[in-house]
């Protein structure tokens, strides 16, 4: 297996009127070619911001720390994503080798431009196709994701399609340039459960067919369990646990991951009370010192939780966790 994208010590702050706000802190991970990685966390955990950094797409007030490094292993060779500046350079990570699907398919299509026109525009930006070829490729792609009557849909607007149809069209558009990495930012959250299952099945099919890597951002552990090979759990801008998806769900080690799994409603025991993770995610303006989870953790082991940022402990080959509980075990 060869790495597709490597993120090293990614630290990202936003410059605001209230000062620098840390959104992502010291996040590192590697995605292999053809691998599906789940990125899980509550709203505000920094998962979307992390994903957007891979396309260098964060707002203009974003400040990356000098140690941050994102390397994309594109077909043409390694690309240092954060050093890209001009639109021409950025092309490779924006719609070229990396595509992104957003949470709300309705809002991510421009309302007054046909779906076809938006697809063709993207193809023309990233290939030497003629307009005619781009059109037939787009229609073929719409057909491929299961949109019936694709030639007619090509000339329609997003508001004329149903929710599931729109997300299919979004997937078709994202895959039309044949990217090696697909970032899916909560692609099924806005959909009905039945449509959600269809879209997930479609994505799984396409992954095996196109052999691309996927970063699947969600707060829904159920969706991650169905789709991902590996899962990264984020909390307040930090990566707290990382491992194979079955291992992490069956045997969560970080108190936060344990809390997330305990908070899921259980169909087999409907009388069991829901056990949410107590408290709220703190404001990014008041990041706790030490472990970022210490304000909500039920298993604080001592002073170090309040003062020391926990380092990553390898539990085995593939499973690691950033928590003081496991520090001695690892040493």
């Amino acid at each position, binding site marked *: 297996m060869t790495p597709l994208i490597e993120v090293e010590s990614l630290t990202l702050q936003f410059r605001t009127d209230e000062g620098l706000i840390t959104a992502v802190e010291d996040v590192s991970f590697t995605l292999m070619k053809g691998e599906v990685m789940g990125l899980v966390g509550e709203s505000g955990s920094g998962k979307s911001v992390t994903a957007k950094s891979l*396309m260098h*797409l964060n707002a*203009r007030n974003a400040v990356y720390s000098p140690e941050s490094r994102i390397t994309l292993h594109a077909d043409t060779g390694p690309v240092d994503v954060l050093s890209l500046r001009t*639109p021409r350079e*950025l*092309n490779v990570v*924006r*719609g*070229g080798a990396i*595509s*992104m699907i*957003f949470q*709300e398919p309705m*809002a*991510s*299509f*421009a*309302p*007054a*431009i*046909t779906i076809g026109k*938006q697809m063709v*525009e*993207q193809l023309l*930006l*990233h290939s030497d196709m003629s307009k005619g070829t781009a059109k037939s490729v787009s229609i073929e792609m719409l057909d491929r994701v299961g949109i019936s009557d694709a030639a007619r849909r090509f000339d329609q*607007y997003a*508001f*004329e399609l149903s929710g599931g149809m729109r997300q299919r069209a979004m997937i078709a*558009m994202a895959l039309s340039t044949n990217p090696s990495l697909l970032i899916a930012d909560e692609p099924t959250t806005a959909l009905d459960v039945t449509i959600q299952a269809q879209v997930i099945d479609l994505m799984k099919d396409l992954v095996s067919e196109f052999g691309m890597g996927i970063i699947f951002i969600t707060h829904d552990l159920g969706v991650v369990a169905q789709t991902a090979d590996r899962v990264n759990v984020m909390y307040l801008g930090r990566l707290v646990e990382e491992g194979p998806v079955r291992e992490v769900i069956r045997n969560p080690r970080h108190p936060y991951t344990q809390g997330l799994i305990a908070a899921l409603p259980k169909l087999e025991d409907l009388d069991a009370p829901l056990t949410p993770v107590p408290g709220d995610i703190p404001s990014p303006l008041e990041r706790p010192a030490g472990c970022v989870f210490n304000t909500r953790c039920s298993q604080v082991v001592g002073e170090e939780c309040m003062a020391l940022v926990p380092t990553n402990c390898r539990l085995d080959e593939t499973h690691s966790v950033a928590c003081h509980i496991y520090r001695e075990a690892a040493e």
Partner: protein
Amino acid sequence: MLNFARFVVTRALMAAMTLVIVSLVVFSLMELVPGDCAERYLAFKNTQGSGISVADIELERQRLGLDKPFLQRWALWIVNAFQGEFGDSCILRVNIAQLLGDKFWLSLSICMASLALAYIIAIPVGILAASSQNAFLNNSLRIVSYLGLAMPNFLLALMIMLFATVYFGETLTGLFSSEFRDAPWSFAKFLDLLKHAWLPIFILGWSATAFALQTVRALMFDEIGKLYVTAAAARGVHGRKLLWGYPARHALGPIVNSLGFDLNRIFNELPIVALILVMTDAGALLIEALARSNDQQLAGAIIFLLTASIVALNFTTDVALAVIDPRVRKSIIR
């Protein structure tokens, strides 16, 4: 295409209906003014020294058709109004269509020119301001906008006149130089008009621009923050293609929508500016007719024409909106 034609025709009929209803309101208001044209005319004659009797008034009423029932007179008035015929002025005793003559079209042109000026400036500047992070540009625009919104037009007009008189010894009043005032239309007269018209256009356009600028900027801010813009950027769309093709393209609809409203505002401000600049345009005539002489025939005609212009513009923007926005267009065609 057929559906589109049907839409245009329906809208045109609705506009005409609106005008008919407005005409009823205007006509009723004309009736509400105490006294009628016959009394007014004879009262005027009386001041000239000739004695009048009740019989004279009755005779005059019959001559003017004022003895007919209200609805019949209204029907006659509206049928004539749609043909551009408004009868005689009560006081001035001349045909209103002749009296207004070019004046109404001049007023309308001045208002439209101010509107055009406002949007020609506001659209590009508003779009660039919304997309630029330049604090200096944004702050100076804000100050200019607030000045435009806060300073009354008449004050601006007075200041410019004062300035021109004191420093250049020129009086910037009227729409024509004296030698052209009653001359027939010619290219020289048109040039003379341009020489004079820039001032009312500028004064009326000043606050309209400030207003339009705020509208465009706010609409653009809204659009730029939307997800489809980020999504387009994530597909590699960038630079001018991104700015004009996405947020600007989508802000256009609401901008077109605000045009009718703005023309209305400019029309409302025209009479005051006209009064100060001593322009004998329709606005000035309206003030004259309403405030000084109680000339209900003339006032009614002007109000009807103003309303007709605004209804016509609204009709145009409705059709334009259907052309621009597929959501509107498709809802018609379905």
